[in-house]
């Protein structure tokens, strides 16, 4: 389902990393070598290696040059830095993932005049893809974060430092790391978050969404639990920074203890300590370079970092909660069902009316009529039960059951309208709309709008292609198409709407739509459309123009159309592809 669009940018870049320091215990000689290395997508600019003779292990350390990390004796492991780096990515993605789900806000942006550029509006079409990308990134970096923290837990317990008990997460030497995991607040919330993420992600795969949408919907609502756990996870105060850097700078020598480092960081110190130095510092000439040896004036003090995650998360979370509240209030009033119509091929039409309902074309049938309608195809268990509630099983043969028969309709609430990319079809001079089967419903509202009044819009020519498997499907909107065609003939604009109907499966006997639809019968073709020829014909008739291509149907058609739209043609016509995905 991920589609690469030229405008889409995948935001997986990390932001600046926190620094953390942990003092080392005595009798360890530090030999710091700084190696500059540019790691492309992480934008890290420095990597230094720390060797601790006491532990006899070499641990690489990833730092950021903008923070003066690496000043002095400390006990750093790769796990700590990997976990902090991945936490930064997770912060960013957890905050961004909520934004595409604010559908009312996106619909408002799409319709408002504040977004004049068509390019920006097309970016809004990609909101679902962006959400999925952020989700996958969260999964990957959660994996990295967990693996790094597992190594940290082990190191905390093995390398427990007696000198700085505040810094250590373990309570005593060689504490069982599993106990560390389950009895600390960050550990427990972390495990719960992984479980919630596991449930959400396994239920969000394409196969599950297509077959059992309920599982996806109900598990995805666990995101709220995930966010609460995330806010608790960072409140543990595990990360600390040193508050008295001026009196106890890194790399200083404590006179109480034995000499801890022979040669400290020549490059670092030379870079970062310019100008006058406070008293207590003496110069030493070493290897033809000036090195400064500092003497500690007092013991280091540590304080917990303010949880940065709260700053990242609270904005989008509040926005999303506000939006859900607004949608809840808006959809609180039930709609009044005017009529229920049973169409061939298991499609039901529901006409209803709701007070204070405003919709734009492309969202729902027309602004001028008070009633609006919904077409749905009965495919799964929910739609079957809905149909049985609306029509009694015996009455399903008849076409229309008027309301006066005092049917006991279920109480119906609707949420919306939300924007869709098909609104844009009225803003192109020439549009090509391709519908596959029940995918014609978004275009029905466009056609209804044109039936009312076509002059205010930019659209001057519409190519309407509708591909169906069953010939009776065309009866869903046959009346609308005929009325539209007749209207444009009367107004002497016969080329405004060009209708082509395709019957893709040819084994049926019936070859015409109906006796009373002559205009549609002569526009009916048997077999699948030949897209390349169609595009060439449209390009030839509209040279040099920009044609908007809109597709609502199976993904095979949309992929083909996307490919052909992106190819150049010899007539200078540009095809811009707009797509909405539904699964």
């Amino acid at each position, binding site marked *: 389902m991920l589609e690469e669009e030229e405008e889409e940018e995948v935001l997986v870049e990390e932001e600046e990393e926190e620094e953390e320091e942990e003092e080392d215990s005595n009798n360890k000689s530090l030999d710091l070598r700084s190696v500059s290395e540019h790691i492309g997508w992480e934008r890290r600019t420095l990597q230094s290696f720390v060797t601790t003779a006491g532990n006899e292990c070499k641990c690489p350390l990833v730092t950021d040059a903008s923070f003066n990390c690496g000043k002095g004796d400390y006990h750093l492991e790769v796990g700590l830095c990997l976990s902090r780096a991945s936490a930064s990515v997770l912060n960013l993605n957890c905050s961004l993932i909520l934004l595409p789900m604010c559908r009312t806000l996106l619909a408002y942006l799409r319709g408002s005049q504040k977004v004049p550029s068509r390019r920006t509006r097309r970016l809004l079409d990609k909101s679902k893809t962006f959400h999925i990308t952020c989700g996958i990134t969260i999964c990957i970096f959660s*994996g990295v974060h*967990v*693996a790094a923290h*597992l*190594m940290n*837990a*082990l190191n905390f317990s093995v390398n427990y430092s007696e000198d700085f008990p505040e810094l250590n997460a373990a309570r005593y030497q060689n504490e069982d*790391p*599993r106990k560390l*995991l389950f009895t600390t607040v960050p550990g427990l919330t972390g*495990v719960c978050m*992984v*479980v919630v993420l*596991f*449930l959400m*992600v*396994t*239920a969000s*795969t*394409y*196969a*599950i969404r*297509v*077959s*059992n949408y*309920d*599982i996806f919907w109900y598990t995805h609502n666990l995101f709220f639990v995930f966010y609460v756990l995330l806010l608790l996870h960072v409140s543990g105060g595990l990360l600390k920074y040193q508050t008295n850097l001026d009196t106890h700078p890194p790399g200083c020598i404590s006179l109480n203890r034995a000499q801890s480092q022979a040669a400290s960081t020549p490059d670092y110190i030379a870079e970062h300590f310019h100008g006058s130095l406070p008293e207590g510092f003496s110069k030493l000439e070493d290897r033809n370079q000036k090195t400064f040896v500092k003497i500690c004036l007092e013991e280091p003090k540590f304080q917990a970092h303010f949880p940065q995650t709260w700053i990242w998360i609270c904005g989008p979370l509040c926005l999303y909660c506000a939006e859900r509240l607004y949608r809840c209030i808006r959809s609180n009033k039930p709609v009044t069902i005017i009529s229920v119509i049973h169409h061939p091929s298991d499609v039901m039409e529901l006409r209803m009316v709701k007070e204070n309902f405003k919709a734009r074309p492309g969202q729902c049938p027309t602004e001028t009529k008070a009633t609006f309608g919904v077409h749905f195809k009965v495919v*799964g*268990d*929910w739609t079957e*039960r809905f149909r049985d509630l609306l029509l009694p099983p015996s009455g399903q043969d008849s076409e229309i059951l008027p309301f006066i028969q005092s049917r006991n309709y279920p109480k119906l609430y609707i949420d919306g309208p939300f924007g869709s990319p098909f609104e844009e079809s009225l803003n192109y001079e020439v549009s090509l709309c391709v519908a596959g089967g029940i995918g014609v419903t978004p275009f029905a509202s466009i056609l209804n709008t044109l039936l009312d009044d076509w002059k205010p819009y930019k659209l001057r020519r519409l190519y309407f292609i509708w591909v169906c498997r069953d010939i009776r499907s065309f009866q869903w909107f046959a009346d609308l198409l005929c009325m539209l065609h007749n209207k444009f003939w009367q107004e002497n604009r016969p080329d405004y709407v060009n209708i082509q109907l395709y019957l893709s499966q040819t084994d049926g006997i019936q070859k015409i739509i109906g006796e009373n639809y002559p205009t549609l019968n002569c526009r009916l073709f048997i077999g699948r459309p030949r897209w390349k020829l169609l595009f060439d014909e449209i390009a030839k008739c509209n040279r040099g123009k920009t044609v908007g291509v809109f597709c609502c149907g199976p993904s095979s058609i949309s992929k083909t159309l996307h490919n052909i739209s992106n190819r150049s043609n010899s007539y200078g016509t540009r095809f811009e592809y707009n797509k909405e995905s539904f699964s």
Partner: protein
Amino acid sequence: MGQIEWAMWANEQALASGLILITGGIVATAGRFTQWYFGAYSIAAGVLICLLEYPRGKRKKGSTMERCGQKYLTAMVKLFGPLTRNYYVRAVLHFLLSVPAGFLLATILGTVCLVIASVIYLLAAIRGEQWTPIEPKPKERPQVGGTIKQPPTNPPPRPPVEVRKKPSVGEEEAGTAGGPQVNPIPVTDEVV
């Protein structure tokens, strides 16, 4: 929530748990944690679970999306018959496989996820679901010339001999319209 097929979700979960177990096992063995042999076990268990769960079962209603390349594993999994068809067996198997991995920190998450998958499989088994392999549809060869039978044996019907003969000279003169136009319906001259 009427017709949810829980087995499909359990299958996704078990596959994901298998991958988590493999990852945890690799971290444990590579990092040489204490009791790293649990890590090696967890890699093996993860591989077994992935192989077992990779072929997706068939849905009761509607078409099922196959995972790519799953037909080879389907053949293997089908061989075990009721052991793989029954979801009770799978639930118990997953639960037993997950227990040893719980002793090691690196693989503990795999245990938790696999236990959840095992619970969902139990739910699916209680609801009577079963694993049915997705059989490849036999390719329908286009029947070229299937309706062409034997050529006809009888000649086409012809009118009787008398009609086929050319008409006589007398009949010919009376039949053709040689003279002026004779209107079958009387026509009046409408001059206003």
